[in-house]
């Protein structure tokens, strides 16, 4: 996953970056598997790697490739970049060392058989309102896209 992430930002060719992002997302799915959540892993593959990345690739292909390959890769902001990365790293280390007691010692082995059932029970029971709001948000996005792209009547 780390290698995929690094490749995404260092490749000159945007299609290579997209392929590296696909690798990263598949690695994410396997992390979900290691956390005993097979349903989430399956849905991650279907939606992210199989749906969203296809759309990414569509858009990348519409952008002129030659110009973006020949653009000079610049890193003149490297001072600020290093400061920001160090600050973020320090934040992570602080959170981990202070809150180490909250994390369990090892991954608790829940019965992975009920991952689907548990997600469904929580999604349609306790978090039903958030579920509906999220679907409404997606509907608004779809309507916005259709309105912006349609021809004038």
């Amino acid at each position: 996953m780390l290698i995929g992430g690094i490749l995404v930002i260092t490749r000159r060719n945007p299609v290579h970056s997209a392929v590296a992002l696909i690798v990263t997302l598949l690695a994410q799915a396997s992390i979900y598997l290691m956390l005993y959540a097979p349903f989430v892993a399956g849905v991650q593959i279907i939606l992210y790697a199989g749906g969203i990345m296809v759309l990414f690739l569509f858009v990348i292909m519409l952008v002129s490739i030659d110009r973006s390959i020949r653009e000079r890769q610049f890193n003149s902001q490297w001072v600020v970049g290093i400061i920001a990365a160090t600050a973020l790293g320090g934040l992570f280390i602080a959170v981990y060392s202070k809150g180490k007691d909250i994390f369990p010692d090892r991954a608790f082995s829940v019965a992975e058989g009920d991952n689907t059932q548990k997600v469904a029970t929580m999604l349609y029971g306790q978090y039903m309102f958030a579920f509906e709001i999220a679907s409404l948000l997606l509907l608004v996005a779809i309507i916005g896209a259709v309105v912006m792209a349609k021809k004038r009547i």
Partner: protein
Amino acid sequence: MGAIVQYIQSYLASDKTPGAAGNMFWAFVYIMLVFVGLSVAVIAMNWLERKILAHMQVRLGPMRVGPHGLLQPIADALKLLLKEDIMPSEADALIFWIAPFVVVLAAFTVFVVVPFGPTHAITDMNIGILFMLGVSSLSVLGIVLAGWASNSHYPLIGALRSSAQMVSYEVAMGLAVVSAVLMTSLNATGTGTLSMIGIVQAQQAQGVWFIFKFFPLGLIAFFIFAVAMVAETNRAPFDLAEAESELTAGFHTEYSGFRWSLFFLAEYSAMIAVSSIAVTLWLGGWLRPFPNLLSGATWDQAFSFFPGLSFLFLAAMCFYNTVRMPKHPLFRIQTIGLAGFGVVLALIGLVLFIPAVRVRVQDIFWFSAKVAGFMYLYIWYRGTFPRYRFDQLMQMGWKVLLPMGLGVLILTATVGLWPLIQNSLWHP
């Protein structure tokens, strides 16, 4: 020797798939068996497609290469292996090289969960159907990359059209699958299952194949899936993206030789994979026909003779055609070859009559027979239906199949929960 036989017998008596039992050796054996079986099936499909299409078009198809063209697929494979491997200049070499592999990987990995029997799957994930849908959606990525990497107009347009079509029909497929999975939850605990073996066992427990359940809802859901799966695999009548008169050959125009054969392999494997999904979800998987109407031990016994009888029937057809071969001396080798093939088929049929083998092979046979029926339907569609224009195709995917799928889903849920709804209506 005796120890090996005993090891094999002790394994075959188990009641778990190799994945569930954590048995690496047998998992590997099963993987090899599935791989070999799939390759043989793709080769057979090549021959069958050309012969069946030809007979539907009142001509003969390949007759020269072997007896009745039986060695034609081998000749095709040899030709593809020996062809020059061309890569367009200015093409992105890495992506050009990766794209066929992505498609083949996606098409072959789905067979890990395909259930050939109650314990005859490589493994039985409890998200089985979700895994199959997810991994087969990765082949869309491979197609887009292939079209782009060829650095040429026809493949790019073909790839974009093809992937747009596949993504649209995945939605309709998903809805049809969900309404079938809903039917698995009509058991005592009210909990359904996404695992492929679990879905067939739910059909066994409820005593009815899901295609006939809640008539006509199961049938409509099956119909939606049957149409969507043909569109998903870019086969006629939805093959605009690779139709020769429209786009030369779509996304695999610039691929030659072995790379093209990888795409070909992936296409037929994907066809077999989605047919397996349809068979598992609606047609009862490995269950024999008429589980209710003709139930009982004697009928089980009678149906268990079917595998052997079908092979003997094929052998009989081979012998009949051997007799009908022209008596010219140049045809002698072909005649002998056909007779030999018939003898091999007859031997396989006789082996399948042995009681020990008969009991175990039944599940695999019925599953394969149903998938073979679907393959015949695929070829039939190709020979019969005219091609859809691309906008008609997209319109059908979004405006016809998607609302139908939603309607079937809502109706299936309502009818399935009818006792509960009735209770809550009468006793609020």
